[in-house]
C-alpha cells in the first residue's frame, strides 16, 4: 500500500507572553481545544497524540482536561526540537497508515530570565560553569561575531531584523511584544553579549500551540487542509559550532540546520526558490541572519542586502518570521517550533490579516535550531 498523504486540518494557539494564574498545561489544553474546533472534530476522534513541554510537565497529562479516551499519547522531550519531533512522529504514524487523525501539542511556561543550565546534565565539567562560560548568550555572540567577520554582516542588519520582528508582532494578536521598537533603541539597549543587545534577544516565555493532523482521506468534512510534505530532524556532526562547547574542532562542518533543511526540501520535492514564506529560528537577530543561509534561502553574505532592501519583510520577496518570530513571541520551548507551523498554515490559508503575505503563498518552510546542536525543518504546501 502506498504511503498516505498527510494534511494539517486544524491549528490552535494560546497567545504567547506572560499569563498569571494559568499553567502551561492549561494553555496547552486551550490550544488543543482550539485546534480541534478549527478542524471540525472532537477529542474522541483523535487516535494518536504526541506532545511535549520542557518546563511544564508531561504533555499526556492533558488527557485529564481533554477527556480520558484511551488514546495513545506519547510525551516527546527533544529540547528546542520538541515540537518538530512531535510533528515528525505524528507524520510517520499517519503516512504509514497506523492511524487516521492525530493531535500534536507543545506548551511551556518558563521562569523569567535567561535559561540556566546544569553542566552535569549536559555532560559538561563543573569548571565550565564556575569559570563563567555556561551561558547560551556567549555562544550566540561568538558564532555571530565570526559570521559577521567572514561575510560582512553589519550591526545595522542586526537591528533591522529585530525591528522587523516587533513590527510583525504588532500585527499578530497572539504575539507577546506588540510595540514597535526603533533600530536606534535596539542598538542602544543593554549589551548582553557583544554585538547582541537586549532587544536583539528573545526571552523565555509562555504559550501553547496544537495541530490536528490527518491522513488526507480522513480529513474531517469542512476542514481546510494544507499538506504536510516533510518533517526532518538532524543532530550535529563533528566540527559544527554549538552552544556549551569548551573547545571546537580546528576543522569546520556545516550546521545541523543545513542537513535538516536540505532533507526537508528533498522529501517535499520542492526547490528552495519555490519557498514563498519562511519561519526560521531567531533566538537572536543574528540567528535569523545565519539561518537564512544555513537553510539555503540565500547564500552566505547575501543577507545584508536582502534585509536592508526589505526583502524579508511581510511584503518582500522572501518573507521571514511573519508572526514576529521568537523575538516578538518569546520562547516557550515546547511550543516554539509548532508556532512556526501554525503561522505557516495561517499564511497558506490566507488568514493572516494585517500580516498576510501577498500573492497567495503556496509553499512554506519552517526551521528550528537548538541546544546541543539539533534542527528540525518542515515544508507545507497549500
Amino acid at each position: 500500500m502506498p504511503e498516505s498523504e498527510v494534511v494539517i486540518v486544524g491549528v490552535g494557539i494560546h497567545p504567547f507572553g506572560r499569563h498569571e494564574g494559568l499553567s502551561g498545561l492549561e494553555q496547552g489544553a486551550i490550544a488543543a481545544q482550539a485546534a480541534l474546533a478549527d478542524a471540525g472534530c472532537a477529542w474522541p476522534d483523535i487516535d494518536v497524540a504526541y506532545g511535549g513541554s520542557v518546563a511544564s510537565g508531561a504533555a499526556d497529562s492533558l488527557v485529564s482536561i481533554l477527556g480520558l479516551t484511551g488514546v495513545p499519547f506519547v510525551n516527546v522531550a527533544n529540547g528546542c526540537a520538541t515540537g518538530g519531533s512531535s510533528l515528525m512522529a505524528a507524520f510517520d504514524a499517519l503516512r504509514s497508515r497506523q492511524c487516521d487523525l492525530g493531535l500534536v501539542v507543545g506548551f511551556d511556561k518558563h521562569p523569567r530570565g535567561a535559561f540556566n543550565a546544569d553542566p552535569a546534565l549536559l555532560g559538561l565539567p563543573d569548571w565550565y560553569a564556575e569559570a563563567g562560560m555556561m551561558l547560551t548568550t556567549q555562544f550566540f555572540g561568538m558564532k555571530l561575531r565570526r559570521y559577521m567577520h567572514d561575510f560582512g554582516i553589519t550591526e545595522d542588519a542586526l537591528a533591522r531584523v529585530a525591528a522587523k520582528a516587533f513590527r510583525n508582532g504588532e500585527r499578530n494578536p497572539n504575539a507577546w511584544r506588540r510595540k514597535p521598537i526603533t533600530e536606534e533603541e535596539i542598538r542602544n539597549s543593554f549589551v548582553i553579549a557583544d554585538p547582541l543587545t537586549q532587544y536583539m534577544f528573545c526571552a523565555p516565555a509562555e504559550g501553547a500551540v496544537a495541530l490536528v493532523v490527518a491522513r488526507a482521506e480522513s480529513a474531517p468534512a469542512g476542514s481546510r487542509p494544507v499538506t504536510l510534505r516533510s518533517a526532518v530532524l538532524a543532530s550535529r556532526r563533528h566540527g559544527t559550532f554549538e552552544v556549551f562547547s569548551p573547545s571546537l574542532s580546528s576543522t569546520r562542518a556545516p550546521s545541523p540546520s543545513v542537513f535538516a533543511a536540505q532533507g526537508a526540501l528533498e522529501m517535499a520535492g520542492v526547490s528552495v526558490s519555490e519557498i514563498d514564506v519562511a519561519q526560521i529560528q531567531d533566538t537572536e537577530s543574528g540567528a535569523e541572519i545565519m539561518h537564512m543561509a544555513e537553510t539555503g534561502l540565500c547564500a552566505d553574505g547575501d543577507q545584508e542586502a536582502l534585509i536592508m532592501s526589505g526583502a524579508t519583510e511581510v511584503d518582500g520577496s522572501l518573507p521571514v518570521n511573519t508572526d514576529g518570530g521568537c523575538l516578538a513571541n518569546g520562547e516557550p520551548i515546547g511550543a516554539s517550533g509548532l508556532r512556526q507551523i501554525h503561522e505557516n498554515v495561517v499564511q497558506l490559508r490566507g488568514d493572516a490579516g494585517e500580516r498576510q503575505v501577498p500573492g497567495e503563498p503556496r509553499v512554506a518552510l519552517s526551521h528550528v535550531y537548538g541546544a546541543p546542536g539539533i534542527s528540525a525543518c518542515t515544508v507545507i504546501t497549500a
Partner: protein
Amino acid sequence: MPDTRFIDPSIATWPGEAARLLGGRCDGCAVVTFPAPKGCPACGGGDVSQVELDPVGTVWTYTVQGFPPPAPPYLGPASPDTFRPFAVAYVDLGSVLVEGPVLGDPSSVRIDDPVRVVFPVLGQDQDGNDVVAFAFEPIEEGSHA
C-alpha cells in the same frame, strides 16, 4: 587555612611557570579535543591520549559577557559592585580551538589577535580558597611570546 587550588587539576599542568592546558588526542584519527574526552567525538574511537596544548594562539571569535554570570556556580566577581564585563573567546591553538575568558579591556579584543594562556586567580570558593583558572592574555606587539 585557606589555600590556593586549581579549578580542575585534570585540565592543566598547573602549577608552574610553564603550565599548559591538557587536551586529548585520538589515537585513531588524531583529532584533538579540550578537555580530554572519554571517547573521540570525531570518529568514536575509544583510545584518547593526553596532550599538552600550545600555549599561544589567535582569537578566532569573541564576545563580551555584559552581565554577571549566575553565582554560584560562577566563582568570579559577580556582585553589581565588583562585576566588570569581560571578553570570552575561542582561541585557535593550532590543534584545537579553546574557549576561555580574555583578560584586559574587553572592547579591545579583535579576531586574529595573538594571545597566550595564563593562570590567574578567578575568585574564592565557599571555603575561602583562592581558585585559579585558565584565561587568555593579549600578547602585546613587539613582546616575546
